């Protein structure tokens, strides 16, 4: 049974208000708090280390898997290994996400290592939200690792959001794409206080016709620091586009290092990066519509991170 803190966190990270339809696995304070499998989606616990294996049968369509994690007790530190085996031609939605409620004085940390093995022509939409709350002195730490191994024609759309309350994060995403595989990433990040966020991507396009479109939008407020690093490697005739767009505010520090690496004459790689404050004329425009300066600022940030 979930308590009210856990329920609230689940709403924040997985938009779950009641028990979800389809397969799910809830992890609360380091223990399994509920699991459901379906005829096409099986979930089993790993025997050698913490974590689960999620096996999606070939051809599974219109099904979803929810695997949210809640840390509500102060002082829990864990590394969890979750592997997803997505069968050929399957088309599923996977919702992960971790919320930390830390009212204590000890650090809480969840490091989720997610590996995705996408079969031929399979498709996934993967949604990952991170959220922290609680007024204790203990820090809320999340270090997610996402690895994507994509076979011919596989398509993955990743939506990764971290808007509030995580003190320290190191986000590592690695992807290897075979022929005609396509990876789309939409990252939204906001840091405040003295938070630190590192977001690091390495995408290797190894097959002809593979492509990646990686867009990261972030807002750095107060004394926070963001470090964005992306490396896109084109080893075949492929198309890669990465974009890093950051709004910097107050005394924040934003560091962006794009790297492109082409090993094939037909690899087309593009990187766009922009860091800047909110334009004064944007604030002025919204103020002429009746908003105060701080309301205007919030509207601009909310729109940017939507």
């Amino acid at each position, binding site marked *: 049974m979930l308590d009210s803190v856990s329920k609230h966190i689940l709403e924040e990270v997985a938009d779950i208000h009641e028990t979800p339809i389809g397969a799910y696995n809830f992890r609360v304070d380091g223990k399994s708090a509920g699991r459901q499998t379906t005829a096409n989606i099986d979930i089993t616990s790993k025997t050698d280390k913490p974590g689960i294996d999620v096996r999606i049968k070939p051809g599974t369509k219109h099904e979803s898997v929810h695997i949210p994690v809640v840390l509500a007790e102060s002082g829990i530190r864990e590394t969890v290994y979750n592997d997803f085996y997505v069968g050929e031609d399957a088309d599923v939605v996977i919702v992960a996400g971790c919320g930390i409620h830390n009212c204590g004085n000890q650090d809480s940390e969840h490091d989720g290592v997610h590996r995705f093995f996408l079969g031929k022509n399979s498709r996934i939409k993967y949604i990952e939200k991170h959220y922290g709350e609680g007024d204790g002195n203990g820090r809320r730490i999340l270090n997610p690792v996402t690895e994507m191994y994509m076979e011919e024609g596989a398509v993955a759309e990743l939506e990764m959001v971290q808007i509030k309350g995580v003190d320290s994060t190191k986000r590592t995403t690695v992807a290897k794409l075979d022929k005609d595989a396509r990876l789309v990433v939409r990252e939204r990040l906001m840091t405040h206080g003295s938070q630190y966020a590192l977001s690091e991507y390495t995408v290797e396009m190894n097959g002809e016709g593979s492509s990646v479109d990686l867009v990261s939008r972030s807002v750095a407020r107060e004394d926070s620091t963001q470090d964005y690093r992306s490396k896109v490697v084109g080893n075949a005739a492929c198309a890669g586009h990465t974009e890093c767009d950051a709004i910097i505010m107050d005394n924040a520090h934003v560091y962006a290092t794009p790297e492109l690496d082409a090993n094939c004459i037909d690899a087309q790689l593009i990187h766009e990066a922009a860091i800047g404050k909110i334009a004064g004329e944007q604030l002025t425009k919204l*103020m002429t519509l*009746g908003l105060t300066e701080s309301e205007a600022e919030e509207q601009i940030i909310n729109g940017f991170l939507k």
Partner: protein
Amino acid sequence: MLELKNVTFEAADENGGSKIITRDLSMTVGDNKFVVITGPNGSGKSTLARLIMGINQPTGGQILFNGRDITHASITERANLGISFAFQQPVRFKGLKVIDLLRIASKKELTVSEACTYLASVGLCAKDYINREVNASLSGGELKRIEIAMILARGSLLSIFDEPEAGIDLWSFSNLISVFETMRENIHGSILIISHQERILNIADEIVVIDCGSIREQGPKDEILPHILGTAAARIMCDGGAKISRKGGAANA
């Protein structure tokens, strides 16, 4: 409605000195009046509009709105008292959609069909635009029309347009005139437009001619318009305006 008393605006120039952009300017805009401000480029028309909206603060004089002194009021206060401002060069926003801006402008949870009415009246096919981001993917002309739709959504006591014709194509220009004509019939408020265009001057109740930061002439359209045709103010007006009225006239014939 709006009264400017001896308004002066002095700004720093590039040589470290200062420059008077608006000089001892006095004028009034009456209730439900349609007033057009015209004059040569660089005469201080846009600055005057910005002073009224509060984007720039006057260095001398007084601005009254419905009898209330707003000389040093903020942009937000003026907006909430009932002043709207359409920018000459509309601002782009990454992430904010057309419907978001229309909702902020109208100060209510506009339904999609209400929002569409505003877009349709500026000649945009609403369903194509309502969920578009107001970003670099929109053309200058599209942005300009969305800017005007926001003013319609606000329905303010005083609506100021800074060169609404700039960046608008010929077809939209005819449409623009009808937008203003409809506006003056439907909204109970005053309209103040900065323009060089003869066809806009033609639908005014009053015309104010500005030169070097001061008012050179002001009065009813029928009195002022004949004076300024052929003058410096009109030269600019005719450079762009003649072309448009000729083609526009043919289309209407």
